[in-house]
């Protein structure tokens, strides 16, 4: 059990770390956490995680962030915890090597673990320990280890891992002490055993450190904050989106490779997580225009028989517009569709059921139900494999529009925002521009995101010239263009 001041320091440190990871924690919540731990006295880290969760996690979306932050912080960032685990593991491994089976205790305690009662017997042996302790060229963890303070040694190693030069220094020190006669021939096996134990401990500590992923270390160093909580204006809250490197923003979307695509999808998911609270609760609701509420006024006044007559006003209700996306899943456009849908997947719940997704090549199918799946990977897998579209066919925008208009006309009304995504290349089929015009006349606004380079837009079988009469084309040939469009999306969606 942690002592109270250590507990408070640990929790405060964890709170700071969790804030860097994107969890918004107030001092009151941290105090509640300390109170909870004191009240329920958890005996292990998993129990402590369970006890702290109700105090620190205030919505289901934060649970993953909390669990990751807790595991990382108490597993790695606090030296005591990995140090304890590393010492236990290294001792277990060493015992296993002696007996041939891991984890099996021998009847005989190894000599190095003999306690102070044997100090008299090991008088001359202690000479080399003391000599090592006084050697200025040796590292602090090694000296602590030799003096029996294994946990402190492991904690130091967690901060400053064993380097090659330190290993060399130890070997040089052994040679020096042997030359001086402080280490005798009889002492050598014991010295070797101690050094082996120290090396095993350093190795275990290093394993704990390396399991901390590279990406997470970078994000801890960067101190990336997500725009959680609080009411921000759209532009300032979405500004974090521009916390993306210029190199990534300049990435051409049509030619993106698998690794880069994964990175871009992750950025899109991050964007969705940041914007989700803003769509779910629109900013500036306090400043919204209030209108006279006749029903409330009459109810309030009737109870006093009209004396006094109280006027009651209510703020105009926040309204979410409907969103319909129609995305091409053929060829290279599929990657761009993947990024856009990753963003929309993250916002799916915030849209409160007012969003519908369609994918097409020449046939079109609705894929909205897949957005309720547990992970985006599952969702996109279904979208690109399981929809009733001819994945291997050639894009035929005209046929797609015809099917969309026949089967799903009800999806479009004056409160709908439509987002088409594709290169508008019809493979010489009739583009059926009139349907786009009809849709555009029904809906609030229609956008056409084109991932092709604008210089190619009016060439060959491109139908941009036909469609742009009815819809607004948006250049998303680079990731920055898509980011810019997504930045504006909340403002278009929330009435």
């Amino acid at each position: 059990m942690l002592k109270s001041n250590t507990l408070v320091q640990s929790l405060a440190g964890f709170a700071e770390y969790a804030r860097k990871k994107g969890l918004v924690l107030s001092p009151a919540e941290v105090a509640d956490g300390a109170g909870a731990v004191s009240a329920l006295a958890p005996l292990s880290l998993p129990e402590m995680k369970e006890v702290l969760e109700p105090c620190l996690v205030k919505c289901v979306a934060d649970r993953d962030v909390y669990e990751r932050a807790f595991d990382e912080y108490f597993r790695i960032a606090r030296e005591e915890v990995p140090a304890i685990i590393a010492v236990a593991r290294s001792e277990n491994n060493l015992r296993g090597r002696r007996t041939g089976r891991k984890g099996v205790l021998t009847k005989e305690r190894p000599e190095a673990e003999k306690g102070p009662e044997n100090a008299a017997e090991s008088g001359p042996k202690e000479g080399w320990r003391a000599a090592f302790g006084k050697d200025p060229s040796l590292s602090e963890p090694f000296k602590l280890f030799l003096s029996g303070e294994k946990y402190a040694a492991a904690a130091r190693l967690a901060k400053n891992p064993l380097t090659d030069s330190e290993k060399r220094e130890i070997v040089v020190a052994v040679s020096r002490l042997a030359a001086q006669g402080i280490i005798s021939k009889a002492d050598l096996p014991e010295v070797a055993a101690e050094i082996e134990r120290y090396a095993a401990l350093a190795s275990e500590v290093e394993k704990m450190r390396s399991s901390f992923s590279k990406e997470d270390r970078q994000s801890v160093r960067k101190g990336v904050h997500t725009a959680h909580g609080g009411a921000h204006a759209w532009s300032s809250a979405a500004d974090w989106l521009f916390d993306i490197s210029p190199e990534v923003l300049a990435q051409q979307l049509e030619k993106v490779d698998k690794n880069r695509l994964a990175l871009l999808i992750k950025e899109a998911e991050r964007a969705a997580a940041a914007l989700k609270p803003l769509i779910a609760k629109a900013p500036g609701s306090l400043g919204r225009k209030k209108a006279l509420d006749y029903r409330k006024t009459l109810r309030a006044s009737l109870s006093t028989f009209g004396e006094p007559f109280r006027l009651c006003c209510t703020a105009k209700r926040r309204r979410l517009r409907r969103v319909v996306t129609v995305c091409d899943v053929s060829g290279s456009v599929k990657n761009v569709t993947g990024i856009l849908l990753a963003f929309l997947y993250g916002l799916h719940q915030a849209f409160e059921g007012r969003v519908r997704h369609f994918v097409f090549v020449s046939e079109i199918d609705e894929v909205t139900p897949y957005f309720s799946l547990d992970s985006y990977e599952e969702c996109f897998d279904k979208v690109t494999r399981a929809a009733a579209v001819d994945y291997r066919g050639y894009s035929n925008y005209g046929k797609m529009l015809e099917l969309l208009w026949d089967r799903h006309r009800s999806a479009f009304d004056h409160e709908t925002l439509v987002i088409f995504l594709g290169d508008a290349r019809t493979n010489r089929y009739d583009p059926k521009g009139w349907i786009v015009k009809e849709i555009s006349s029904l809906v609030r606004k229609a956008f056409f995101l084109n991932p092709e380079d604008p210089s190619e837009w009016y060439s060959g079988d491109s139908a941009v010239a036909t469609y742009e009469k009815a819809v607004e084309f948006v250049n998303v040939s680079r990731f920055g263009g898509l980011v810019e469009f997504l930045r504006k999306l909340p403002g278009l969606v929330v009435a």
Partner: protein
Amino acid sequence: MFKPTQWQEKLRSVSYVPTKQICAVLSLAQALEKPVLVEGPPGAGKTYLAKAAASVLNAKLVRLQCYEGIDVSRAIYEYNYGKQLLYLNALRDRVSAMLNGTKSMAESVDILDREAPFWGESFLVRRPVLEAISPADEKPRVLLVDEVDRSDREFEALLLEVLSDWTVSIPEYGTVTAKKKPLVFLTSNRTRDLSDALRRRCLYLWLDLPDRKREAEIIMAQVPEASPKFAGRVADFLAEYRNMSPRHVPSVSEAVELAVALLATAGENFTVEDVEAALSVFAKNKDDAKIGRRAAEKTAVTLVAEK
């Protein structure tokens, strides 16, 4: 205050099967004297948790069902204006006599304030929140603010004082402080996002639909005649059914109703046909009925394969 292990035993004794997290949160709610915000999909057992907790604490459950437009007069307190006017009318002569001889308006008002208790206890209508904070009989209460997400932001703001300070300020009456803080549950189906101010005053509990093992335990707890094997089969079927993404996902109470229906009509060894006959218990539309049939067939096939 009960420890989590004690909550575990006591909740099971009232036929509620809790998870470790539920027990920890209830224990913390008592220790820290904070309300509990329970979120989760519809039918996960959020309301039933409050009822079970009230039963364990031997407290009266005070329920406030939220809806859009709910305000202070429905949730916290109201004055019985009709009664005030009636009394005023009836006591007009008495009041006149009382005010006879007063020299100024201020003196008359002062006398009325002192003598005429029109803003006192007898005209105050205690709505659920005030009833929970300051019960008339001083016995313990558990307050359930059900489906708080159906209310609006203004109503949430009304609850903030109560949830943080356990007081209700009534301008005409004074501040009422809770002598014994009730256990408060707020439930939400997440139809809208609640404000941060409300969330931060509560302990948070996410209550999801139970997994197979827990659902089987719930069925056994609620349906005493059900054997572990029967409960397991029903839980397996429901897990398969939910996996097929029906439009209406069956709740825990519907799971119990299905178990009761199957036990009553077919007994322990129910067949696919028996499940089809009981579809109306949990399948609330045509498409879900088809899914129910498929799930029943699939579960039956799995059972035969296991045998």
